[in-house]
């Protein structure tokens, strides 16, 4: 009897999951794979034009597919250093301009969720969306009470599609060198995150959490939720004014403005990490709106991540012992983060400890030094990225660390585009003192 190879068995199982019909309707990744095979003739063209063309096509395709893959595109575009400039430009466009659902689809989706067509619910409702969100699109409307609101409506079938993609992903055997970084735990974490993000009621709760717990930052604006006009697929919140980063940068703001804004963004991040214990986990620039008065509006609370206690405690302890030369304490702090998974008994020779220390010492130069880090310099961004890279390569797969990495690199990319100089040590110290 011929023994079936493991790959064949897995492929067969993949086909079984959910049935073929669902697969046709519900896989974004499938479309992408198709696309990979289709572009072979294009490879003959010279590299630059190929890159530009494929970048554009990638964006067009991503826009057609919507949802999780678009999210992936956004995450990629945050990694400015890893991706050629042409592709980065196209991906940046993706962040702001996704194609709209046509009005018929949008109205049908709204009615299925809210029981009535939007124009019957609101005093005014703009059929043209003014923004694309990764899982939906946003319309301007006015409540019967006269409030200006943003109504986010989700594309249909997203949840099912995510489930399909992950079911498929699980059947794929990763090469051993990847498996080290992408554990089953991480895949589950990612899936849970995506699924949670598709429930707008969860996002409504996140917004309310920020409204209740983050009023200490005077420059931060958080929208209000209108529960009576919201459901799991429709989210109505107060309309926030302001401009996106790129629009703002086109007006050539002064260096002083850039520095101030950069400091505020950095403060917002460390405040979330050390004081709020929750992070607005979507670092792409489409989630921040800048107003003339220097305030920052945070929009899109789809994936707020609530940090576990040990991570927050560990982070505080790491910052405490960073410049004391106290490697034993630093090791204890790391132990808190990783719990019992690593042996830190010999701190001096531990590569994980060295990597973390090196990174943090670069990010937060020695106390007393008020000198700002110039994020506008490519070298700075490169160093920070490679230092993070080293951390990830030395430490065992850990969803929380991976998550923090994504957030911080996302933030640094924004600061880089902003060309901001930030006194990181001072800002961090100020926030942490306030918490104590």
């Amino acid at each position, binding site marked *: 009897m011929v023994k079936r190879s493991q790959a064949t068995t897995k492929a067969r199982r993949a086909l079984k999951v959910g049935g073929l019909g669902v697969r046709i309707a519900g896989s974004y990744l499938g479309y992408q794979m198709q696309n990979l095979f289709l572009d072979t003739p294009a490879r003959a063209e010279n590299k630059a034009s190929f890159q530009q063309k494929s970048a554009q096509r990638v964006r067009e395709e991503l826009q057609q597919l919507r949802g999780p893959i678009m999210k992936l595109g956004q995450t990629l575009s945050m990694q400015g250093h890893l991706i050629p400039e042409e592709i980065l430009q196209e991906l940046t466009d993706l962040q702001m301009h996704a194609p709209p659902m046509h009005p*018929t689809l949008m109205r049908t989706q709204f009615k299925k969720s809210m029981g009535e067509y939007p124009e019957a619910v609101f005093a005014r409702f703009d059929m043209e969306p003014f923004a694309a969100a990764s899982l939906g699109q946003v319309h301007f409307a006015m409540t019967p009470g006269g409030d200006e609101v943003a109504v986010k409506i989700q594309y249909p079938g997203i949840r099912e599609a995510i489930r399909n993609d992950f079911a498929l992903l699980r059947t794929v055997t990763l090469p051993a060198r990847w498996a080290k970084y992408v554990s089953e735990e991480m895949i589950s974490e990612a899936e849970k995150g995506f699924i949670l993000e598709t429930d707008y009621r969860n996002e409504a709760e996140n917004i309310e959490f920020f409204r209740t717990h983050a009023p200490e930052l005077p420059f931060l604006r958080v929208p209000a939720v209108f529960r009576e006009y919201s459901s799991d697929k429709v989210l109505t919140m107060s309309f926030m004014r302001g401009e996106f980063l790129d629009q703002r940068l086109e007006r050539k703001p002064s260096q002083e403005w850039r520095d101030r804004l950069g400091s505020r963004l950095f403060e917002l991040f460390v405040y979330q990490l050390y004081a709020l214990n929750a992070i607005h986990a979507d670092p792409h620039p489409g989630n921040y709106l800048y107003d003339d008065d220097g305030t920052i509006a945070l929009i899109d609370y789809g994936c707020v991540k609530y940090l576990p206690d040990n991570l927050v405690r560990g982070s505080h302890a790491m910052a405490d012992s960073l410049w004391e030369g106290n490697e034993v304490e630093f090791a204890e702090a790391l132990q808190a983060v990783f719990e019992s998974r690593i042996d830190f008994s010999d701190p001096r020779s531990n590569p994980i400890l060295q990597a973390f220390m090196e990174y943090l010492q670069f990010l937060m130069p020695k106390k007393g030094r008020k000198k700002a880090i110039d994020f506008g310099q490519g070298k700075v961004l490169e160093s920070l990225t490679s230092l993070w890279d080293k951390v990830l390569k030395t430490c065992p797969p850990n969803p929380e660390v991976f998550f923090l990495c994504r957030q911080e690199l996302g933030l640094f990319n924004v600061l880089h585009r902003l060309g901001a100089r930030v006194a990181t040590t001072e800002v961090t110290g100020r926030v942490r003192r306030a918490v104590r």
Partner: protein
Amino acid sequence: MPTPTKRQARKKSTSSRSTKKAPGKRAKNKEQTKARILKAALELFGQKGFYKTTTKEISRKARIAEGTLFNYFKTKEDLALYFFETELQNCIDWYYQDDYVRAAPLPEKLFGLVQHYLDRVEPYEEFIGAVYLRALQPRSRLNPLSLEVQELRLRELMFIRDILEEAEEREEVPPLGEFGVYALGLGFLAVVTYWLNDRSEGKENTMALLDRALTLGSHVLRQGGWEW
């Protein structure tokens, strides 16, 4: 390629069918009775299922003699055919009266039409499922090869052809001819079958399938093939 005048003439044939019978009190009464019977039957099908419902129960519910019922519909299958005919006509009328949908780009237009149809027939999902099963029997009048079904199908295809020709004239799609008509007709059947099996909340997956298939389809057609 048909000339515009021919097209105009044909459009009349599908779009004005319902108004053709307008004169005559008798005919009007007849239509009203048929509609009353259908309403009663659909209610019973919903409660007891298509197979278990008897003609006797239908006539009682519609408050007519069983013999009278027989004058209008020989069998339950005729009732089912009448149901699909009415729904098709409703879609056609709706399309020609809705200025927004008529002016919309082809994918949105087709989406609107199918969604309109599905929204209307949603309460009768089980009944439609039963009809599908029944249609598999070779001797059933609901069988795809029966004259009655063929006639209905032809009207549907003519309607699709009118829509596609409009799109071809507006250069939204390259000339597709009869192939496009049959492909869309088949696609519609596939969507309804998928819809019958769709257990997602609010049949959301069908909506997603429809939107993606139409978007992808028109994308491919506009580019004239897969080389994009």
